[in-house]
C-alpha cells in the first residue's frame, strides 16, 4: 500500500472499550476475590426470616431476599460462582477446541474429517439445547454447569486453530521446523499456538459473557446451580415471581449480570482490536 498510515480512530475506539470493559470486569473479579472481606454477612447461613424482603436501606444496601439474606453479600459471593462458571467453561472450550483444531489441521486425513464433522455437528445443535440435555443428565449443579457449557461451544476456537495450522503449513513454517528436527508437539506449541493466542483470548472473553447468560437461561429453565450458594442467574430466576412486590430482588442480580457481561463484551472487543491479526491487517 502506498498510503502507509495507521488509522488512529480504530485504535482509540479499541482503547475506550478496553478501558471501560476492563474496569467492569476488574470490579467483578475483585468482588469475587474479596468476597469474604467486603460482604456484610454470610450469603447462606445468615438467613433470618424476620428480615425477609427488606427494601434497600442503609443496613442492607441492596435489600434482603425472601429468606432474609443480604442481597449485596449474595451478589458479591455470586460473582465467584458466575465468574468461575464463565472462566472454567471457557478454558474447557479453548482446550478442547485448540487440541482438536491443532491436531486436525496438523495431521489431516481421517482425523481432520472427523473433527470437521464434529464441528459441524456442534454448530448444528444450538448450544443451549445441548447444554440443557447435559444438565438434565448430570443434574443441576456447578460442576455439571461447567461441563455443560464447557463441552458445547468449542467450535469457534477449533476452527481458528485449524485454519492457523493450515496457513502456517502452506507457508512452509511447519516443514521448516520439521526439517530442523522439531517434534510435532513442539512445532504446535512454538509455531502455532502463539499465533492464535490473540483470537483465542478474544473468543474466550466473549464466550465468558455468553456462559454467564447461559447460566441464567438454564436457571430460568430450572436447571441451574446447586443451592444454596448464590449464582446471579439463580438469584434472578428465583426472584422473577416477586417482580411486582419486591423488584430489588431481581434488579440487582440483573444489573450484576448485565454489567459483567457488558464488561466482558467490551473487553473482548477491545482485545480484538489489539490481538486479532485479522482485524489489524487492514491498518498496516
Amino acid at each position, binding site marked *: 500500500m502506498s498510503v502507509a498510515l495507521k488509522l488512529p480512530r480504530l485504535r482509540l475506539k479499541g482503547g475506550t472499550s478496553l478501558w471501560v470493559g476492563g474496569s467492569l470486569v476488574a470490579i467483578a473479579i475483585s468482588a469475587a476475590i474479596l468476597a469474604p472481606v467486603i460482604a456484610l454477612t454470610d450469603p447462606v447461613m445468615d438467613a433470618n426470616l424476620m428480615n425477609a424482603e427488606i427494601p434497600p436501606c442503609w443496613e442492607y444496601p441492596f435489600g434482603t431476599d425472601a429468606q432474609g439474606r443480604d442481597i449485596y453479600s449474595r451478589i458479591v459471593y455470586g460473582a465467584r460462582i458466575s465468574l468461575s462458571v464463565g472462566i472454567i467453561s471457557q478454558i474447557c472450550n479453548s482446550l478442547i477446541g485448540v487440541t482438536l483444531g491443532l491436531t486436525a489441521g496438523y495431521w489431516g486425513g481421517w482425523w481432520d474429517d472427523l473433527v470437521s464433522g464434529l464441528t459441524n455437528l456442534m454448530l448444528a445443535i*444450538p448450544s443451549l439445547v445441548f447444554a*440443557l440435555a447435559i444438565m438434565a443428565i448430570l443434574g443441576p449443579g456447578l460442576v455439571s454447569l461447567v461441563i455443560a457449557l464447557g463441552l458445547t461451544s468449542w467450535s469457534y476456537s477449533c476452527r481458528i486453530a485449524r485454519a492457523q495450522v493450515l496457513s502456517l503449513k502452506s507457508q512452509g513454517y511447519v516443514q521448516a521446523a520439521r526439517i530442523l528436527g522439531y517434534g510435532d508437539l513442539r512445532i504446535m506449541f512454538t509455531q502455532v499456538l502463539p499465533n492464535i493466542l490473540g483470537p483465542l483470548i478474544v473468543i474466550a472473553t466473549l464466550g465468558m459473557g455468553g456462559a454467564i447468560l447461559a447460566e441464567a*437461561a438454564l436457571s*430460568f429453565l430450572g436447571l441451574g446451580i446447586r443451592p444454596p450458594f448464590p449464582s446471579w442467574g439463580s438469584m434472578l430466576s428465583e426472584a422473577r415471581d416477586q417482580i411486582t412486590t419486591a423488584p430489588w430482588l431481581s434488579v440487582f442480580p440483573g444489573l450484576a*449480570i448485565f454489567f459483567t457481561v457488558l464488561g466482558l463484551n467490551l473487553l473482548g472487543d477491545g482485545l480484538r482490536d489489539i490481538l486479532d491479526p485479522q482485524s489489524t491487517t487492514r491498518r498496516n
Partner: protein
Amino acid sequence: MLIVLGRRLANVIPTLLAVVALVFLLFSVLPGSFISGMNEDGRSAMDPAVMERMRKEMGLDDPLLERFAKYVVNIAVGDLGTSFRTREPVTKMLSGRIWPSLKLVMAAMTFAILVGVTLGFLAALKPGGLLDTAAMVGAISGLSLSQFWFGLMLMYLFALKLQWLPSFGYGDGGLRNLILPAIALGVGPMALLARTTRAAVLDVLNADFVRTARSKGMSERRVVEWHVLRNALVLVITIVGLQFGSLMGQAVVVEKLFAWPGVGSLMVDSVFQRDMPTVQGCILMIVLFFLAINTLVDIAYVVIDPRIRYR
C-alpha cells in the same frame, strides 16, 4: 446451483445421522424416566404395577442398541416414534408446532434484520458519529441482556403498564401476540447484525473499488447503492444465516416465558417429562431447520456473488 445443493445434501445426511445418534445416546443415560416424570407436578401419584406395564409398552427395558437400531430404521421411513406422554405419533405433535415456531423465528429475524442491518448501516456511514456510538453501545448492551429478563421487562412495560399488546400466548396467531416474543427473541441477533453490518459496510467502504467508484465522480449515495450494498450483503448474509438457523433452538426460553406453542417449548416440556421420542423429534427438527437455512444461505451466495460458482 444444483451442485451446491448436491454437495450440501451430501454434508447434511451424515450430520443428521450423527445428531440422531448423539441425541439418542445422551438421552438414554438421562436420570428419571417418563414414568416418574408423570408426577412432575407433584400431584399425580402412580401405581408401581402400572409403571412396570408402561416401561414395557414403551420398550424402555429393551437393550439400548436394539432401541437405537429400531429408531434409525423408523426415521428412515419418516416415523419419529410415538410420544410417551400423549401416545400420539411425534410427527403429528411436531407438525402442530412447526408453524408457530417458524412464525416466531421469522418475525424475530425480520425484526433483527430490519433494525439491526439498518442501524449498522447508518452507523457505518458516519463512523464515530453520535448515531454510530449510540447504535454500538445499544448493540453491545443487547448482547449482554439476559433473554428472559428482557422478555419479562417487555411484558411488564408493553402489556401491563402501557396495555398496548397482549402479554402472552398464541391468541389467534396474529401479529399482536407475535410482537413481544419476537422482539425478545430478536434482540440478540439484532445486536449482532448491527455490529456485523457496521463492520462489513466499513470494510467495503474502505475497499479500493469504492475509491474507484468515487473517482468516477459518483455521489456517496450512488456509491453506496451501486457498489457498497451488495458487497456488504455478502458479509452480512453469513451471520443472518447462522443466526436464523439457530434461532429455533434459542427460542426455548422465549417460548417458555411467553407460553408460545413452538418446537422449543415442546422440547423443554418433554425434557422435563422425559418424553424421549418427542425430545429427539424436536432436536431433529431444530437441526434440520438449521441445515435447511444454511443451504438456502449457500444458494443465496451463489446468486449474489459471481465468484462462488467458479470455486
